[in-house]
């Protein structure tokens, strides 16, 4: 018998059986939908945590404060020197005047400070270079490079007043530490739920095949080969997975819409709905492949037991 004929018959019996065993099919699809929703949630959670972590990391920078009397050209030299460091993503120059304006803006409600500043007459603030590294872990080496450069930071010709990395370091470290722990915990918890829900789906399919055990025996008695018995059940598993992945994907629209409206501010401005829209194809592919594999493998495992005898 040709492979094509076999495949066609197995596919046909699988689809007929799916259509006729309505209750079993609906139950299996529902269970599979729960599993796929958990898998989808894991993907969203990872995206949210990753985004939040990136947000926090992007807020971190190292500020180099210059003495007020340092010439702009000297600062320009330092800036280009820093820009050449491989770890540096960007360097922003804040002039003395800008620094004063920023300071005034920041303390606009504090009349006493502003009055004191006016009485001083001159601008006591030096220019600042705000440095952003490519990765959070690289700040230390950038700060160290500046500190170690004796001609800039030490002696009578020093032009750098201070590099504030040490003060920021502790809080940055703690924050990234917390975020990474949360991410790890999130992955562990969701992995746990993913495994549990896969097991539940597996058991649902196993139960469906258990109910058909007499039918399997009868098929064997009329001399059907294993592929003829196993094949249609695996096709059913594939159909469960396919339909459940579509349902799950549709369900995620209202879920992400609701989550976006309620949590956007909390998660540092990330729109889950937009993430859903941007990654729609990948999301569908992941859910579809997961669903189909879970359905097919569950059926294969569950039926193996009845074919051994």
């Amino acid at each position, binding site marked *: *018998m040709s492979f094509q004929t076999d495949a066609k018959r197995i596919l046909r019996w699988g689809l007929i*059986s799916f259509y006729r065993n309505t209750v079993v099919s609906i139950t299996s699809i529902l269970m599979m939908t729960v599993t796929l929703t958990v898998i989808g949630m894991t993907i969203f959670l990872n995206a949210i945590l990753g985004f939040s972590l990136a947000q926090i990391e992007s807020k971190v920078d190292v500020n180099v404060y210059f003495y007020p009397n340092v010439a702009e050209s000297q600062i320009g030299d330092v800036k280009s020197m820093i820009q050449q460091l491989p770890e540096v993503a960007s360097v922003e120059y804040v002039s003395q005047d800008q620094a004063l304006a920023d300071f005034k803006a920041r303390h606009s409600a504090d009349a006493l400070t502003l009055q004191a500043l006016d009485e001083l007459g001159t601008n006591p603030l030096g220019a600042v270079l705000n440095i952003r590294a490519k990765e959070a872990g690289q700040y230390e080496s950038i700060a160290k490079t500046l500190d170690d450069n004796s001609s800039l930071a030490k002696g009578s010709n020093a032009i750098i007043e201070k590099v504030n990395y040490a003060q920021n370091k502790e809080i940055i470290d703690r924050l990234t530490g917390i975020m990474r722990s949360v991410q790890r915990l999130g992955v562990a918890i969701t992995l746990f739920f993913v495994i549990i829900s896969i097991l539940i789906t597996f058991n649902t399919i196993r139960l469906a095949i258990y109910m058909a055990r007499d*039918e399997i*025996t*009868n098929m064997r008695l*009329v*001399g*059907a080969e294993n592929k003829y018995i196993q094949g249609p059940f695996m096709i059913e598993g594939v159909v469960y997975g396919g339909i459940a992945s579509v349902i799950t994907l549709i369900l995620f629209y209202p879920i992400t819409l609701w989550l976006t409206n309620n949590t956007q501010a909390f998660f540092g401005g990330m729109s889950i709905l937009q993430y859903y829209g941007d990654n729609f194809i990948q999301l569908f592919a992941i859910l579809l492949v997961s669903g189909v594999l879970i359905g097919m493998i569950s059926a294969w495992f569950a039926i193996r037991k009845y074919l051994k005898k």
Partner: protein
Amino acid sequence: MIRFEHVTKYFSDRDLSVEDISLSIAAGEFVSIVGHSGAGKTTMIRLLLGEVKPTSGNIWFDDFDVDGLTQSQLPGYRRRIGVVFQDFRLLPNKTAFENVAFAMEAAGKTDEEIVSDVPHALELVGLSHKARAFPSEMSGGERQRLAIARAIINQPEVILADEPTGNLDPQSTYEIVEILKKINDLGTTVIITTHNKGIIDALGKRVVTIEKGRIVKDDKHGRHSMQ
């Protein structure tokens, strides 16, 4: 064609066993195996189908030992035998047509053969009008006739019928026996197990009587002799 040579089978439950059975059945014979419930009739059928293995002894089908068949050889072997059970063992989610067609598909028949042969088999057992019905929509007699249609569809060399009329009313019983006789007349070996006296007497064919797992009588033109 079929030979049991000193076949003994013990289950953990010793009631369902056969002991030192030796029996030879030629091609084209119609043999009734009679005995009380638990005498070992069904065990003999299961042994012949390769569903259970003998504890000792050999069962020969033509020139090969049934016990020596591998898992992959069993389906091919079973397609040479058509089986009919007391509880019908039909596929509940398939229509009458599909039940018969499935056996043909399993035997690797083409779609054209299926479309042309299945209606004939259903006609032979008087079920043409029920082709689209599911087993749950049929009476006991109809289900058993469907089981027979499925059993004969691949033109097996042997038909094994295990208490085929056990669950049927007298009219259906009569119909089933007539169909089995017709199949035998066409040259197929038929082996049935039964404890229905009326069937045995009406057939007037070979009767093998077993009691407590042993053959106690083998009459060429037997009548029912159990008390």
